[in-house]
């Protein structure tokens, strides 16, 4: 039974099987809320409210009337910063994951399908990057490239693909060893046919699961890079807020209202992606 069959034979179809995982559903709901906030925030937040030079409120105000999550070191509302930062964190997480999974799938299929020198070299490079600490490479990349959202996405995407490549390669090799692929080849199917009709369809469900988990780690990576001061200085993100909190001494000031919300938001969104990924994994690879 291939993985694609597994999805279809699940109780009540794939959707039904997913709904049976309560934690996965909870994760999906949390993500829907976060996405809604990300889309609505830029529409409703007046630009003045987040402009350091135009805010009128006092700095380091604890939560209370008017600012229900308090204010930061410049007097901006933490609640509004949180809402505005949602979009950046989600956007970077999703695009970096797409880039990483895209590269990983390409490298995995190529090194699994084509033998010979090229595949060997590609596998060697994959293993090399699999071993290296991705964060260290991402730091080096974002230091040498100009600061910006694109750099962050590139730095995370280019350093986190090897695990996807390994997994896709393994799946490609498994599928290509099966009789129906041999039959397709015997009937004259070329590389394009075998990859497009047999390898990719069996790889896609696994890749989707992997992508969901990749978004989770990409969001953590984004917050880490932003915390180290490597983020886009013109954009608000949860990681950048924590960078400001560290820089302006939120801990000695006991400004818990500036420290807790960004971290909790990261934890909730990352956990949500992880739970959805695990539920999808259970759906895609049913227990034998």
């Amino acid at each position, binding site marked *: 039974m291939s993985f694609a069959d597994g999805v279809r034979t699940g109780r009540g179809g794939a959707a039904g099987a997913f709904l049976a995982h309560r934690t996965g559903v909870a994760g999906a709901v949390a993500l829907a809320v976060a996405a809604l906030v990300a889309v609505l925030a830029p529409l409703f937040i007046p630009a003045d409210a987040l402009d350091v030079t135009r805010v009128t409120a006092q700095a380091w105000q604890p939560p209370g009337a008017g600012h229900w999550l308090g204010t930061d070191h410049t007097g901006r509302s933490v609640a509004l910063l949180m809402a505005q930062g949602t979009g950046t964190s989600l956007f970077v997480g999703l695009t970096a994951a797409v880039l990483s999974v895209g590269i990983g799938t390409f490298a995995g299929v190529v090194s699994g399908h084509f033998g010979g020198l090229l595949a060997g070299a590609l596998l060697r490079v994959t293993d090399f990057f699999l071993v290296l*600490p991705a964060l*260290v490479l991402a730091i080096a990349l974002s230091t040498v490239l100009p600061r910006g959202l694109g750099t962050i996405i590139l730095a995370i995407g280019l350093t986190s693909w090897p695990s996807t490549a390994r997994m896709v390669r393994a799946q490609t090799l498994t599928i290509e060893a099966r009789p129906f692929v041999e039959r397709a080849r015997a009937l004259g199917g070329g590389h394009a046919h075998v990859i497009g009709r047999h390898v990719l369809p069996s790889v896609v469900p696994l890749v989707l699961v992997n992508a969901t988990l990749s978004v989770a780690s990409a969001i953590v990576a984004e917050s880490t890079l932003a915390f*180290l001061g490597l983020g886009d200085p013109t954009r608000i993100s949860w990681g950048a807020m924590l960078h400001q909190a560290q820089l302006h001494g939120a801990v000695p000031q006991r400004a818990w209202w500036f*420290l807790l919300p960004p971290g909790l938001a990261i934890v909730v969104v990352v956990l949500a992606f992880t739970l959805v990924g695990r539920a999808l994994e259970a759906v895609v690879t049913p227990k034998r």
Partner: protein
Amino acid sequence: MRLAGRFGGAALSLLMVAVLGFFLFRVVPGDPVVSMTRGRPVTAEMQAALRAQFGLDRPLHEQFWTYLTSLLRGDLGTSFTFRRPVAEVILDRVGPTVLLVGTATLIAVLLGLWLGVRAAWRRDSAFDRVTTGVSLTLWAVPTFWLGMLLMMVTGDLFPSRGMRDTDTAPDLLSQALDVGHHLVLPSLTLVAVVCAEYALVMRSSLLEEMHAPYLTTARAKGLRDDLVRRRHAVPNAVLPAITLVFLRFGLVVAGAITTETVFSWPGLGLLFHDALTGPDYFLLQGLLVVTAGAVVVMNLLADLLHGVLDPRVGVV
């Protein structure tokens, strides 16, 4: 033959690390000297002098050759911010990092493996659910945020900056106690994050062994459940887990960078932070080469260790 292959692979990886370090910091848009001196009052002549000092005015292949040969001699160039050889600057910071990472890894391995074994053996029990839930949550927690949180929660209970106070008595015991006191929060932060990973790895590793026929045999012999676990299941399941501990060394390195930044722990991680805020490209290049090289060596060790521990692999 396999052994030779392992060593050859590691050597090739080290060479690739060196090449990567060179090209990452040379083939980038913009002039490194301009970026490094940004915000400082420098004239064009001073920049040209710096370029000559760092050898940046020579053709790329010549630079690469000089870089490779000096790397083999242990020369990593000169740090722009410290005005000292990069190798010396790095060597000064190795001790604190080894202390922090070593302490944290030791605690995390023991605690993580124990939690993982207990969780897997009683699958779906309350203990298992709590361990898995907490581990998954901790996995989602950014290391640096956990550190800041611990710092705020504990207040003045533990020192939160640096490795020792300046006014501690110079005798060995007071110094050791002082360092230990400073070590509490950073190592706790690192343990929490890394331990979660180890617990999950150990749990799934033991779960894979759970239905192995030899366990049925052991039970059929009349062994107590406890003995089946300790003598039969765990020794087999712990092998892949221990190898993974070495393989995930990169994870610890990444955790050390943010933890040391939060707590101003004077190790390699803080040096990383200093190098990237400079930016000091030569220091950063040296740090990249050294940490990546260390990770490659740890992986080789993991391979060899696995071969020694598990005769079935048959490396040695």
